[in-house]
């Protein structure tokens, strides 16, 4: 089916997130306003105004009432999804790169970039039920062992017991979410060879997929950090997502944005590439963006997905029936 082009952002997209019911789509971009869309027809529902810098990441609570966003303005903000009002602002001394609500939405993990003399860090914040009671103190702060390298994403492990992080130093780490102890590191031999750009977990928190500038994506067991699969893309991978319905993964990325103008538009390979999750074979690709893809998200029902590009567009794809009958 023809994709729906959603033009609401004026700067490159950075992140996409569906709510649990799959009817809302939140988008973040380098302009300062995260936007909420109807996931069905791509109509814009509203925006969240208040940030003063690029918004890197967001997460929505299970009940779809709260939104948390991380921004380059050195804050992470909590929002009321219904009204679009800002509820609380966590202030950091450096840009907030990624945010993730825990199971039960009582905790949030926020990563911050290395900035000036600050090193990159992972902060765990308690999220109060009533925004009136919200405090800005961190429950736990984890310093990355490679402090000058950026952590691009940190998410909760099963039962909020662990935190999984990955970033520029190419190593995936599992931390104890209670004590902050480093539990596991990914094997350098099989792990990524270049910056890990993205990390997306499966719906049941059992496994997750990482994308990297080393032109591959890898699938890992979330508890043991065992490498399960590797998907070879041929272009740097900026975004990854897994179908909740079929055994498919989708990778997005492409030539670095700074080199795009020098070559033919096809040279960049700005495709969302579909792979068979088990066989690791490429199934097909969806072209359309004219810049690298920075964000990908599957609708929780697995019947549509959206991609956000450096070109500022969100493309919302509802799958044709053929898609569900692909055999390889």
């Amino acid at each position, binding site marked *: 089916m023809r994709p729906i082009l959603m033009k609401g952002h004026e700067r490159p997209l950075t992140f996409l997130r569906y709510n649990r019911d799959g009817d809302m789509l939140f988008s973040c971009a380098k302009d300062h306003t995260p936007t909420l869309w109807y996931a069905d027809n791509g109509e814009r529902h509203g925006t969240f105004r208040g940030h003063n810098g690029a918004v890197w990441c967001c997460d929505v609570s*299970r009940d779809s009432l709260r939104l948390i966003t991380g921004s380059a303005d050195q804050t992470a903000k909590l929002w009321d999804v219904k009204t679009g009002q800002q509820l609380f602002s966590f202030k950091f001394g450096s840009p907030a790169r990624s945010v993730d609500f*825990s*199971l*039960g939405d*009582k905790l949030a993990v926020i990563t911050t970039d290395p900035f000036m003399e600050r090193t990159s860090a992972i902060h765990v914040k308690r999220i109060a039920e009533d925004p009136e009671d919200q405090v800005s103190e961190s429950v736990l702060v984890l310093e990355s062992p490679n402090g000058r390298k950026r952590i691009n994403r940190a998410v909760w492990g*099963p*039962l*909020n017991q662990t935190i999984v992080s990955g970033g520029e130093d190419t190593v995936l780490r599992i931390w104890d979410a209670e004590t902050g102890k480093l539990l596991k590191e990914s094997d350098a031999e099989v792990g990524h060879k270049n910056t890990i750009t993205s990390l997306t977990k499966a719906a*049941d928190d*059992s*496994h997750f997929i990482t994308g990297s500038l080393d*032109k591959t994506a890898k699938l890992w*067991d979330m*508890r043991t950090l065992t490498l*399960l699969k590797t998907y*070879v893309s*041929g*272009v740097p991978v900026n975004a990854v997502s897994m179908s909740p*319905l079929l*055994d498919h993964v989708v990778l997005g990325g492409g*030539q670095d944005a700074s*080199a795009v103008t020098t070559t*033919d538009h*096809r*040279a*960049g*390979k700005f495709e969302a590439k579909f792979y068979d*999750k*088990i*066989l690791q074979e490429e199934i097909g690709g969806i072209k359309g963006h004219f810049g690298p893809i920075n964000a990908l998200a599957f609708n929780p*029902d*697995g*019947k549509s997905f959206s991609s956000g590009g450096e070109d500022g567009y969100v493309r919302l794809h509802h799958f*044709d*029936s053929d898609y*569900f009958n692909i055999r390889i």
Partner: protein
Amino acid sequence: MVEDTDMQEEIHAEDTLEQVAARMAAARLHQRIEASEIMANLDIDSRAAQLGIDWSQVNLDSIHLPPGENFGIESDDEGVYHDDQLEFDTGFGNIIVVDNLPVVEKTKFAKLENVLKKIYNQLGVIKENGLWMPVDLDTGVTLGYCFIEFNTPQEAQNAKEKTHGYKLDKSHIFAVNMFDDFDRLMNVKEEWEAPQTKPYVPGENLQKWLTDEKARDQLVIRSGPDTEVLWNDPRQKNTEPVHKRPYWTESYVQWSPLGTYLVTLHKQGAAVWGGADTFTRLMRYQHNMVKLVDFSPGEKYLVTYHSQEPSNPRDASKVEIKVFDVRTGRMMRDFKGSADEFSIGGPGGVAGASWPVFRWGGGKDDKYFAKLSKNTISVYETETFGLIDKKSMKVDNVVDMCWSPTDSIISLFVPEQGGGNQPAKVALVQIPSKVELRQKNLFSVNDCKMYWQSSGEYLAVKVDRYTKTKKSTYSGFELFRIKERDIPIEVLELDNKNDKIIAFAWEPKGHRFAVIHGDQPRPDVSFYTMKTTQHGGRVTKLGTLKAKQANALFWSPTGKYIILAGLKNFNGQLEFFNVDEMETMATTEHFMATDIEWDPTGRYVATAVTSVHEMENGFTVWSFNGKLLYRVLKDHFFQLAWRPRPPSFLSPEKEEEIAKNLKKYSKKYELEDQDVSLLLSEQDREKRRALKEEWERWVMQWKSLHEEEKLERQNLRDGEISDEEEDDEEAREVKEVEFEDVIDVTEEIVQE
């Protein structure tokens, strides 16, 4: 020299020369140890205290030793000098033994000694008491031999060579040996033993790759730090590794022209690799900082090249070229000079000489190689590695030369001189006679380029001429038929004279050629033949393909098929064309392809994206008719080269016969193909099944863990009864039913 005479006494007493040598060495060693002990025991300070000398009062510089006196203390300098001397002496390299002297009584001893001194003083300086002729102790009769010690081993060597076999008189012919050689000579067995024939150890079969059962071809690729040799296995739709080595070469690799060797370049020089099963190093060629290498066509010789940037930028860079024998590793000749001597300011003249500097001629015999330099062509022959007739050929203002690929004929081009008063000329010169076979003068010529057909039958010269106004140029061809009587020349002009010629290529071993001409971005491609039945010996056009996105031509090595490729600006457009039928077999694209190479049999083509592009590096293998067989992605892909094959031993008649009865021969292989493809799909299925099973195991494990943690999860959600979670399975099924409905709807729409 007192000790020496002592020793000679001992020599006399003992009989075996071995023992003598050992004694002499031991005695000298003893002497040295004593000397060093004296030095060590000399404790200056304690001595000074003993003697009541205050060191601070003594001016050491004022003390002068009497000349020739050292009070038993050797100076450091002398020690060094002395050491050298000792090394000299212990070698006994300056002593010769002269045998077959006349046996004389005591009375004639002095006379014989004088005779010997006379002879040997001419050849070198005999040391004082350096001549020693032993005598029988009882009778005083000489034993018929003597020792002579010279000042230097060189003199001794010289004396030995000069006087061995010297006839003193009829019955006394000198037998002279070096004293050092005696050990060896003593060990010679009394009885002659037939030399043992060593069992023949067959060398590795360097051409084993040609005996591959599946008749596959090899290729070498370089990517990242690795260099790999692979089999191209089109049946498996993949490559099969042969040998892989990281940092195998420091710049690039190259096959020898017949495929026997793979040459790698290193700081210290070049090395060739080959062998039956794995690649082992066969030979090394020492040439520091070698930059380029080139084989002679018959792979007998390897030319290595090194250039050094001058410290002063105005100077020409220094060039060193060595020619090696590939098999023995011996350097046959080296050439040194400034880059000017090896180039004529043509392309590549900036950083060094244009490569290859030496062009090999005369086909596979590797008989001649030639160098082009200012106003001269120097032709060398490999028998002597000297110039033919000991002088270069003088050709004023020559700018280009080419060998015929099969015969020892050189074609050369001299541009216009004197502002057009003296016409440009193209000439064919026979080597080694240096006779001009044919020449043609050309007028108002801008530039010429020469293209030999691979079997040396034709030469095409592309001539760019000025138009009347001299503002622009147009191109035409002069076609030489080398093998016909008097070498007739034909002139060919394109239908549209003003078309620019973008590419030209002869059909290998054939009589056709292809030209890309016209304007970018959509030039035309024309095919011509040198042979037609109707026209006899006239060049005829076969056809023109209009408006093709192509800028390069790649003939199959067996002819008949050609790839019209659009590289660089055309992003890798490929058109596989059959020239016999004049029809396109396939049009496809290898996006951003930079290199195209046919395998030596003309069955497969590899197209590659090398690291000039950042992305999609790797190569693709196609069948000759443009069917994509497989792709291999490799980051930082630098080079791909098929291993060449030596020419077939089949006669042309036999080849033709096989071509005629191809059906008969191919049946066997078709069956094999079928088996392989069945096996392959079977393997594939098996592999997939295993992967699926493995995945299932993970999923099962996750599911059970998920189930176990269910309660805890609920607690984390404040006991929220997560109905959806329990009904997960059901919910999913419901959803699936849902989308089936959707499918129905869309189908109806299509029907409407």
